[in-house]
């Protein structure tokens, strides 16, 4: 109440008392709301009882599924009769890994607990860390079901489809802003997210990308083409050389870009017959480019020209340009010879016998989840191998399941390497890393760091209704954070060093100070809502590092926080939160 209320004149008293009444009413209502909110949120800090308040969440978010009958959707249902149970494939993949380790006489790391598994899979699939709310629910389900139910939970979450779509968008169109007006990257990424969420078979997704026509807003897949509009020469045509290089890297997992200018002389690119490969030729590249020579972009969108447009190139050593007709770089026996060049190409790319197509996306999905591809670099898979046996088992399964992406993600995330510790009692060498006998340690990428920081100061899950990246964008901080942190662009699976700028940003930057100081999602709230110092410490550890403090850590931090109260405790909570976010453990997926 304002002081002037207390000194109001008698003739104002009637209206004043009404006003007082209404003010008091509002105050009481406000207090009630706050109390209810505080009690609700504080509940997460207590040990969770699944039988009462969060049973709906427990059921809907973490669906029960028995270990030998993992749920899968659309694509698998279509092919259900031809596909073996997923558990069988996971077992075969595991057996293949174990055989590799045995043959190479490699020791294998122990398995991690459910929280470590939840953290690494959340970072790999959704680009963030588990919330305290999620951890409480997870711990309420039977121990032997936790990993699998966590995976199902992630696959149902919009965060996952958005995060995975961004990874694939990088592979398909890169990160550049691209040509003005005719290219809409965010439409493209959202369209991909929708395909992933609905689990549209991957071959169909790629067919859309390769063959769709129309405008960049109404047919978002055509942004795959409009990104490559040649602004330098003729603004109506896409650049066939860009499309050839992109198609090969994105859908076949092969880098043939060097063939644009010359034949392969280093033995790096093999084409032709996978069983009897030959060195790549400059004509191989341009024969692929020729499939795109008739594709143009106008205000009506991406279209094919009515008349064939010959692809003319001056090959190295030639004095004049010559027409290069469309031809496929390998497995030409799968060429259906359709009249529309792009349809012909799409049919060949997605042909079930074109194994590089399946191999490419599985290798990429593996890299997304593990931070390290089965074959590196992620888009440079040799046509003739050698291929890791687990990869080939997954390729068989993927093709048999009619390109069910969610199923292959389940296999990738459920097989044994995903549960192995990144630490070991033995010396970890390159063979251990290459064969995934330990979980690969990977520095978090900028969007993972941003996602993890935002989630780490909140008790509740920041998900589709308030998606982390959207929220960050809303506050204008995500772009700045990722830009300052250094966006790795398309090469996001290449391990990079940490920079001084990154350290400064994490120690002193706005994003962290916003999380530490007073605010909706702030560590100050944790301090205020925690019943005691021990619970506060546990909460900070769980929200930031997704684990409980060790006995030693407990003793160390309790010594400085136990005796504190009020503001002092808040400050100490802020200090511990800052320490954990700046720790190496936070900055790595491990």
């Amino acid at each position, binding site marked *: 109440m304002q002081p002037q209320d207390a000194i109001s004149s008698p003739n104002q008293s009637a209206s004043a008392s009404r006003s007082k009444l209404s003010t008091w009413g509002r105050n009481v209502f406000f207090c009630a709301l706050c109390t209810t909110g505080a009690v609700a949120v504080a509940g997460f800090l207590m040990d969770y009882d699944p039988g009462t308040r969060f049973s709906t969440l427990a059921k809907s978010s973490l669906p029960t599924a028995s270990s030998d009958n993992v749920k899968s959707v659309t694509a698998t249902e279509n092919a259900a009769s031809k596909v073996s149970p997923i558990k069988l494939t996971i077992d075969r993949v595991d057996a293949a890994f174990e055989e590799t380790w045995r043959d190479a006489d490699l020791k294998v790391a122990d398995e991690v607990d459910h929280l470590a598994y939840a953290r690494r899979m959340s970072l790999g699939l959704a680009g963030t860390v588990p919330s305290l709310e999620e951890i409480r629910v997870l711990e309420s389900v039977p121990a032997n079901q936790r990993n699998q139910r966590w995976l199902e939970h992630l696959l149902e979450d919009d965060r996952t489809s958005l995060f995975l779509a961004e990874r694939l968008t990088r592979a398909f169109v890169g990160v550049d802003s691209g040509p003005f007006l005719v290219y809409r990257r965010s439409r493209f990424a959202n369209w991909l997210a929708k395909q992933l969420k609905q689990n549209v078979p991957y071959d169909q997704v790629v067919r859309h990308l390769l063959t769709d026509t129309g405008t960049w807003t109404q047919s978002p897949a055509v942004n795959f083409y409009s990104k490559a509009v040649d602004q*330098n020469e003729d603004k109506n045509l896409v650049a066939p050389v860009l499309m050839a290089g992109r198609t090969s890297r994105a859908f076949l997992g092969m880098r043939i870009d060097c063939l644009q200018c010359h034949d392969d002389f280093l033995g790096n690119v093999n084409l032709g017959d996978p069983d009897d490969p030959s060195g790549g030729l400059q004509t191989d590249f341009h024969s692929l480019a020729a499939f795109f020579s008739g594709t143009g972009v106008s205000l009506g969108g991406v279209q094919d020209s009515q008349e064939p447009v010959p692809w003319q190139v001056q090959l190295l050593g030639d004095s004049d340009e010559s027409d290069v007709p469309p031809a496929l770089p390998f497995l030409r026996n799968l060429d259906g010879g359709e009249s529309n060049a792009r349809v012909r190409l799409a049919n060949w790319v997605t042909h079930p016998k074109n194994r590089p197509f399946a191999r490419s996306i599985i290798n990429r999905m593996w890299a997304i989840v593990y931070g390290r591809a089965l074959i590196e670099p992620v888009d440079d898979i040799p046509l003739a191998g050698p291929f890791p046996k687990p990869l080939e088992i997954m390729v068989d399964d993927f093709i048999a399941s009619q390109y069910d992406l969610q199923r292959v993600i389940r296999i990738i995330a459920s097989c044994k390497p995903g549960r192995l510790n990144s630490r070991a009692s033995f010396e970890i060498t390159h063979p251990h890393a290459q064969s995934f006998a330990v979980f690969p340690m990977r520095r978090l990428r900028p969007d993972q760091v941003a996602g993890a920081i935002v989630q780490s100061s909140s008790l509740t899950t920041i998900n589709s209704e308030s998606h982390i990246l959207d929220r960050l964008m809303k506050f204008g901080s995500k772009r700045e954070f990722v830009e300052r942190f250094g966006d790795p662009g398309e090469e996001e699976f290449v391990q990079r060093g940490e920079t001084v700028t990154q350290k400064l940003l994490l120690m002193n930057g706005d994003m962290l100070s916003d999380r530490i100081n007073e605010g909706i999602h702030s560590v100050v709230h944790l301090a205020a809502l925690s019943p005691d110092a021990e619970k506060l410490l546990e909460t900070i550890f769980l929200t930031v590092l997704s684990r409980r403090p060790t006995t030693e850590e407990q003793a160390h931090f309790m010594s400085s926080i136990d005796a504190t109260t009020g503001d002092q405790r808040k400050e100490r909570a802020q200090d511990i939160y800052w320490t954990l976010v700046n720790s190496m453990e936070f900055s790595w997926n491990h």
Partner: protein
Amino acid sequence: MHCNSPQHYNRRTILKAAGLSALSWLSPVATTLARAQETDKQNGGKRPKSLIVLWMEGAPSQLETFDPHPGSDIAAGSKAIKTNAPGIMLGEGLEQTATQMDSISLIRALTSKEGDHERAIYNVKTGYRMDPTLVHPSIGSIICHQLTDAVGNTIDIPRHVSILPGQQPARGGYLGDNYDAFKVFDPLKSIPDVKALVKQSRQKQRLADLKRMDNQFLAGRANNQILKGKLDNHNLDAALKMMASDQLAAFDVSKVPMSVRDPFGDTPFGRSCLAAIQLIQAGVRCVEVTLGGWDTHVNNHELQGNRIKILDPAFASLIRELKKRDLLDTTMVVCGGEFGRTPWINGLGGRDHWPHGFSIAMAGGCVQGGRVIGETSPTPTEGSKTPSKFLKDANPIENVHATILNRLGIDYSKELQTPIGRPLKICEGEPIDKLFS
């Protein structure tokens, strides 16, 4: 000053510099000593050791800046002025720069194959065209990578800085993120993220706890050979050192007397040019300062004129101040954008993209001022994109890179191993010797 030898770095010099690394704790004394070692005593002169890039993002019109053709059709009414270098004219509005022209040379018939901003910025900053399998380093990153001498160990602040970063600030590419330019903004504002969030006593406690956590994390991974050299706190130490360093003052121009600041112009770009000088003086190798807004597809003359008003006092004062501080001979200055603009005016009074004959200005670092390399025809045929028909003495953009690297004593044709296993030349161009002879 003479700078006759293109190969400034001989083994002896490097050994001398290496010997000084032990003195690194003496910073900034060690910086001065190390930099002193870089003088080319044998040739009786100084040699360039730093680079300032004035980056005109959006692409300035050569016809209104460094390559005017007054009175011709392609000038479309824009005028030119005389300079203090006989026979050299500049676009109207560059009056102050004209007074420094005897220290500046122009390369007028530059060519590239990129007419799209994104691709062209990449091309001009790195000397390479975009390659889907590899990110090339910017020239500043190459210089910092190649000139790894005692100086690198004595400076607390980053050696590569981008002030007012634009769309694509200079980056380390395949050399690593540590060679990215450190990005800062208007030098009147504080540098981002270098102040601790809490007072010293709490910061001390935080850092002690952090050290404890990290040591525990490292101990658990000591047996991981894959992480050798990748998992340490080197950058934390460097960040803390920077936060406590007096050299941070070099970013700040707010305490510089107005008599020094005023001539640069009361603009963020002008202030940034002054900060660039301070940074070079503090031991920074490469500074990039961006002035955007040159993409004048509409109303070219007026919009270019507005940019020129900002550029002119800043560029001229930069040269003047570098001379005054005896830094011009040891600092190369380059001013230019990603391409030029069409010789004809479009329907909206604008000029479009033109990579087929554009200009940059170079000064300092032994560049003989008052020279013009290359010539563009005042009557190019519309639609003609064959440079040989209307350019004389043309140079591809990578030759500018070779020129700079060569003068800094870097073997520009040396091959570096890239992460994709392919050895790649530092630069594919050839030096433009006429700038120096």
